[in-house]
């Protein structure tokens, strides 16, 4: 659901997304903000689906790397001793 919401946010400049859960499935109704051809709407749907998958991938990458990121940040902001060789 988080991935769906994040994807919906990314597309909120072009469409509104109505999200509901029914029978364990997430249903999304996409409404373009500007009127357009059906083909353009199909492209938006494809892009939205890709965006949901990308958000899931980002979450997965985050799971793998967040601790490493925090360690690197801690190292970057650690006090510098000023001593040679340290």
């Amino acid at each position, binding site marked *: 659901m988080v991935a769906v919401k994040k994807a919906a*946010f990314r597309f*909120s400049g072009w469409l509104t997304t109505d999200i509901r859960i029914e029978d364990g499935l997430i249903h999304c109704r996409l409404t373009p903000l500007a009127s357009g051809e059906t083909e353009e709407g199909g492209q938006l749907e494809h892009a939205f689906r890709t965006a949901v998958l990308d*958000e899931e991938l*980002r979450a997965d990458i985050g799971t*793998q*790397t967040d601790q*490493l*990121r925090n360690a690197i940040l801690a190292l*970057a902001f*650690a006090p510098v001793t000023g001593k040679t060789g340290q």
Partner: protein
Amino acid sequence: MAGFQPLERYTAPLTQGYQLLPVRFHRLKDSRIFVSNLVGEWEILSAQDFSSYVRLQLPHESAAYENLRAKHFLIDADSSVAYDLLALKLRTRLSHLRNILGLAIFVVTLRCEHSCPYCQVSRQSEDRRAFDMSRETALKALDLLFASPARTIKIEFQGGEPLLNFDLIKEIVAQAGSRAAASGKTVEFVIATNLALLDDEVLAFCKANGVLLSTSLDGPADLHDRNRPRPGGNSHALATAGIRRAQDVLGHDRVAALMTTTKASLARAPDIIAEYRRLGLQEIFLRPLSPYGFAIKTRQYRTYETDEWMSFYREGLRTVIDINKRGERFVELYAATVLRKMLTPWPGTYVDLMNPAGIGTQVIVFNYNADVYASDEARMLAEMGDHTFRLGNVHKDSLEAMLTNDTLLDAVERSLLESAPQCADCAFQPYCGADPVFHHATQGDVVGHKPSSAFCHRQMAIFEELVTIMDADPEAASIFRSWAGGA
């Protein structure tokens, strides 16, 4: 005794595989994937290589693997220094935070003899001296400025037309120079002027004090005069005469020009660049119109959409690249600013593209009326009646009180890209900036709604354009690297 490992050590297959290091990704229009890391190093991968990479199945012997390991996108048994190198580069990238208030803008007058409809500062007509900064205000502002820890300070004189209060400029330069000498600081000066009032006295002063002149040049005469009307209709003639005169006295590297794009400019990118070259200028900053001041009142701001401006920018950038390919160095400054962040570990120098936001941290504005603002755009917003980013008054408030202003701290903290929706996951985050004043002005919120933000839309398009050019055109990539080193 230390020595090299046997050759087999480097060619043997990995037995332990690799781990991902922090990475963000963005799908390019051609279905390839742009990836970037914490410090802005980047690669473009095929969809297949990207899929293999994130599933920890990228072949060890592949070129993609070697590039990703070298740029710290993955870590294996042979690359244990990645953590330290990433941390070091991150410190380098944020090193500008130790030189707070490195840029101070003194608005010495709001008077101006031009009538530019896109004027961002809501200038006042020439005879209204009530809009001049007083000597007392200037001295007090210098007291505050030199109390900051910044070791290097650039003082920029703006207006209106600052040369209408030239006597005060002379005094500020003298006072600042004395204080800098006494405190061991370095101070530089810039006058942002339309050059219409340039004379021998001003030039002699600039030469003696190392003052750089920055002016507006919107393009050929017909375009410039249309954009920048003044009595006599001779803004272009005065500006170009002033540029040549200043170049002769001060040197070509001491005179810079900026252009502002209006609807009339959009089809004229090559003409505008040609005019810059005709005048011996070696740089151009292809700027969009900003949403402040008279630009709003005269409805200039919404006269073109971001996509129209991007078409203009792309044409201009390609024109500049072709000039460089013919052997002449000519730099597009906005691209150079971004490329510095894309191709070097060094921090950016452009306030609008800083993260954390540069308002009130890297820049401070002392207005003619003694009010202090967090940025030049904040000052312009105030002239429109919105004083949200006013930090205080030089005669009433301490520097500490102004820099710990709740509104300022809130804007800087909330607009931090690492925590802003969509920005937090954006692969272009290392090159972008938080522009809380722009988002406050256009969307009513310092964080902004990035999916509908003109700033975000423009930045993403520029980032994509630059990486696409570098990937497809090795000669252009080499040109870009020369710009990045000099930005």
